[in-house]
């Protein structure tokens, strides 16, 4: 019965969303991520927890929950799972994730309940109660969940606080990652060399894509902003405080400087404070570029970017404004949008995904007439641009990840029913490892070959070395003889003699005997001598000795001759051999029988 690790992606959905993976390793059950599917309005948006248990709380069935990063498709269902289905065990996530999750969850809750009027949804209190169960993780710190299960978080980098997780039970291990950026890759090779995980689990939603370069996305962004400014229009960029805002600011600042542009760029103060606060807190988590800027100067002491005041929205002429919230569902960004929407010279650039029910979602779906409060209609005449800056691992990225991590098995989770035979074949061919792609609700069982460490006694080792042959090589296993002693928690391999000695036992030897009757009138010594000569001539390659004590030895088989008590012309041959010498017995017997018929 080979040990195995079971991996089951939960839920049944298409598109991006609802990441939730159950891993059973060494008797422990771990839930990786607990995401919400953004496209559904009913229970289909939650992962299917009935796989764990049909009814009742999940606490007894899960040893821990680990959240990889703050995106809603990875943590959106957490309060539902912990407070409405019921789970009281530990929920692990990095510090930045812990800080940002509740903000996003609350925003999301507000939109869903207030804007869409839904009732069966988690409450603000539930979010708070859920977060009380969170145990924050520091990078590179081993956490003992219990006596046997240990976890460790590593920098993954695709958003602030994103982590790769290493899970270990005994000598079996699993690594889970959503996506890995370039900066993280240089870190990964350092630690990942030391342990080849049994399974590397990764999302593969974008595994079959070949991504357009970051530079081209930035180019498109700059081009759109520039064209709008040149025609005297205004650009609104609704952002979430910790999304791409800072990078886009740096980009615009560099561009403005380069092109000697004069139009003002504004950043709403609420954003500034929040962002400053978080970046100071999580400075080790930000990427090189941002850290460089932050260190060189305070985040928002740009030459061209100034603090926004809401009266500026009415100023004539071109300008660019970054304002929250990111989905245009409330607050300052929505206010500005209402003022600018009617002018076709203006532009709104949406840098990320918008949840259903928000204005952002509506205009990205092409809606040009919006119903506002008090039955007022808003004509959307400005240009709407949807730009994606999200960093997901593409085809090349996944291959690189596997190359670095060297897992014994690969497992891709993507939730779609679409076959990815080609990628599976590619991975299996290039790395000679199995690639699993379980569908949602399907369990992939991966057999592991855990190594059991055993101490070997010096004497035994020396003896094996003395036998000659090649030196011990992990790639070329060799059989050896010894006795395995299991004492307390240790395993020791010693020679049989030493084992007997330690156990205080006597060694016994087994010898077998056989009598053969032979007609021979000669004297005993003569018969013995004749047998000796005959055997010597027919059994080439064997060690045959005529010993002074009146025996003939063929290897370790002893032959004695004595006269028969009943018949003076007959001789009795006594053959005896020990357990190891048995294989020669039949040879000897055949020969002797031939002697009889001479």
């Amino acid at each position, binding site marked *: 019965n080979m040990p195995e690790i079971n991996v089951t992606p939960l839920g049944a959905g298409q598109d991006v969303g609802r990441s939730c993976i159950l891993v059973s390793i060494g008797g422990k059950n771990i839930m990786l991520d607990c995401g919400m599917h953004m496209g559904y309005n009913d229970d289909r948006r939650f992962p299917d927890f009935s796989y764990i248990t049909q009814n009742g709380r999940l606490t007894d069935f899960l040893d821990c929950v680990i959240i990889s990063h703050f995106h809603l498709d990875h943590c959106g269902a957490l309060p539902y799972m912990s407070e409405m289905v019921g789970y009281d065990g530990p929920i692990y996530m990095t510090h930045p994730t812990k800080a940002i999750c509740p903000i996003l969850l609350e925003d999301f809750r507000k939109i869903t309940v207030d804007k869409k009027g839904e009732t069966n949804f988690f409450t603000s209190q539930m979010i708070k109660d859920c977060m009380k169960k969170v145990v924050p993780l520091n990078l590179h710190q081993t956490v003992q969940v219990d006596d046997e299960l240990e976890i460790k978080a590593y920098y993954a980098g695709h958003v602030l606080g994103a982590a790769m997780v290493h899970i270990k039970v005994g000598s079996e291990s699993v690594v889970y990652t959503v996506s890995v950026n370039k900066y993280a890759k240089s870190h990964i090779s350092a630690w990942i060399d030391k342990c080849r995980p049994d399974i590397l689990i990764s999302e593969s939603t*974008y595994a*079959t*894509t*070949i*991504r*357009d*370069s970051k*530079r*081209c*996305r930035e*180019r*498109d962004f*700059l*081009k759109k902003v*520039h064209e709008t400014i040149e025609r005297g229009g205004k650009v609104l960029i609704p952002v979430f405080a910790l999304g791409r805002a800072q990078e886009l600011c740096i980009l615009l600042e560099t*561009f403005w400087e*380069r*092109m000697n542009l004069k139009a003002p760029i504004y950043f709403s103060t609420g954003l500034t404070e929040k962002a400053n606060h978080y970046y100071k807190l999580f400075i080790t988590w930000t990427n*090189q570029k941002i850290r460089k800027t932050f260190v060189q100067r305070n985040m928002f002491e740009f030459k061209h970017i100034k603090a926004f005041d809401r009266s500026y929205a009415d100023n004539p002429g071109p300008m660019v404004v970054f304002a929250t919230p990111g989905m245009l569902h409330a607050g300052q960004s929505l206010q500005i949008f209402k003022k600018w929407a009617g002018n076709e010279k203006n532009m709104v650039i949406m840098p990320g995904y918008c949840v259903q029910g928000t204005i952002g979602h509506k205009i*990205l*779906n*092409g809606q040009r007439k919006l119903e506002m409060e008090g039955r007022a209609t808003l004509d959307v005449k400005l*240009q*709407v*641009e*949807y*730009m*994606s800056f999200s960093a997901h691992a*593409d*085809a*090349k990225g996944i*291959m690189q990840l596997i190359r670095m991590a060297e897992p014994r098995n690969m497992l891709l989770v993507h939730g779609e029913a*679409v*076959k*990815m*035979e*080609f*990628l599976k*074949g*590619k991975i299996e*061919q290039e790395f000679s490892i199995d690639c699993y792609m379980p569908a949602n609700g399907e369990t992939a069982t991966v057999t592991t070959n855990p190594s059991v460490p055993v101490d070997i006694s010096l004497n035994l080792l020396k003896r094996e070395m003395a036998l000659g042959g090649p030196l011990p090589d992990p790639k070329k296993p060799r059989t050896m003889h010894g006795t395995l002693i299991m004492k307390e928690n240790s395993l020791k391999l010693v020679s049989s003699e030493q084992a007997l000695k330690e156990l205080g036992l006597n060694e016994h030897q087994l010898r077998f005997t056989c009598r053969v009757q032979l007609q021979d009138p000669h004297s005993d010594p003569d018969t013995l001598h004749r047998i000796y000569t005959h055997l010597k001539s027919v059994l080439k390659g064997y060690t045959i000795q005529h010993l002074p004590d009146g025996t003939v030895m063929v290897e370790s088989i002893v032959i004695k001759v004595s006269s028969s008590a009943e018949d003076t012309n007959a001789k009795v041959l006594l053959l005896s051999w020990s357990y190891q010498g048995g294989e020669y017995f039949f040879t000897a017997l055949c020969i002797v029988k031939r002697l009889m018929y001479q």
Partner: protein
Amino acid sequence: MEAVEFDDILDDWFIESLKTYKDLHVYQLEHPTQVIEWTSEKTVCVTGYSLSKNEILELRLPLKLFADENKGLCAERDFKVAHGGFTDGPVRRLRHIPGTRCVVTNDGLSSDLQVWDLGGDDSDVIRRTGSIAGRRNVSERGSRIAARLSSPPQVLHGAQSSDVQLTELTSGRTLYKLETDSTDPLSFLQFVSDTVFLAGCCNGSVYVTDTRTSAAPQLSPPPASSGDSVLWWADASVGPHPSSCRVVRLSSSGQAVVSDLRSLGGGAVCQAQLDVQERCCNLDHIRVSWAPTLDDCISVSGFSGVVQIYNTCGWSMELQERQPLFQHRGHVVSSQQTDDSTPVFTTAHIWHPERPRTLLSAASDGSVHVWDWVDPEQSAAGSPIPRT
């Protein structure tokens, strides 16, 4: 190279590109390709040419390129690998058989062809379904391949002018053989109508063949040029009638000669000395192509890391030096190549069949670019007008 330095070099070209390109997409394949071939309105095939195992990929172009009205609402900028397969050797040439889900490849070492099924909706694996033997076993430059819509599907192929044949794809039956004595290696093979095809040799001569007749093909001699060891490539523009077809021949020294198909033997319509800035010694990657919808425009690549667009309108019979209308320097500027001894060079390029100024180009460092260039002479009179 430090990321910061890299950014600086790109800066100038990228800033300029805001004005010089309408659209620009830059991709990095795992392995470089010598092939970009349309397999449908929205998909292309690329494939590796290393001596051992390679991949064939059928890529779906990003949605953003096709969204015309609501372009801004489409954020999708990435290629999607729709189908993929593995080959045992290099692929130097690949041709899609119109009306089918088949492509035919050649490794550039022999004259045999491999036949592949690109696969449908039920599987994303490209599988080899058979092979077609060429008339000659060993071939220095491999076979050229051409195809047009026909039922049942057929493929035209050959390594030399003496072994060009038209083969029925499924049965392997030979339907037509080009009978010539000369054994000039081919550099160009193309159908200009259902029954007429052109076979261009490396020495610059072109055979015009009608598969309906058993008469000998018309042979058009190489254009007059200086230099004996000059090699030639060609492309024919396909118009509504074969008679309106024009042929451009390009030499390894950068001489471009335009002729009418009708009077191919009679003499050129016009010619020019192109400013190709030859950098690489391996000329296997030279490509010349007519723009499908822009009158009089040709594109040239393979001499260096640049793709050039020339407007032949205004060329004369005199061999004068002409400057390109537009140059795509993207592959040179953003090259990921670490080996500085071999500069990056373009390996293939094609035009989008409908969008007037959109091209796809590939280079030796594995990069693939999709670009929609802005005509610098747009406001001036005489700029190329799209045909449709």
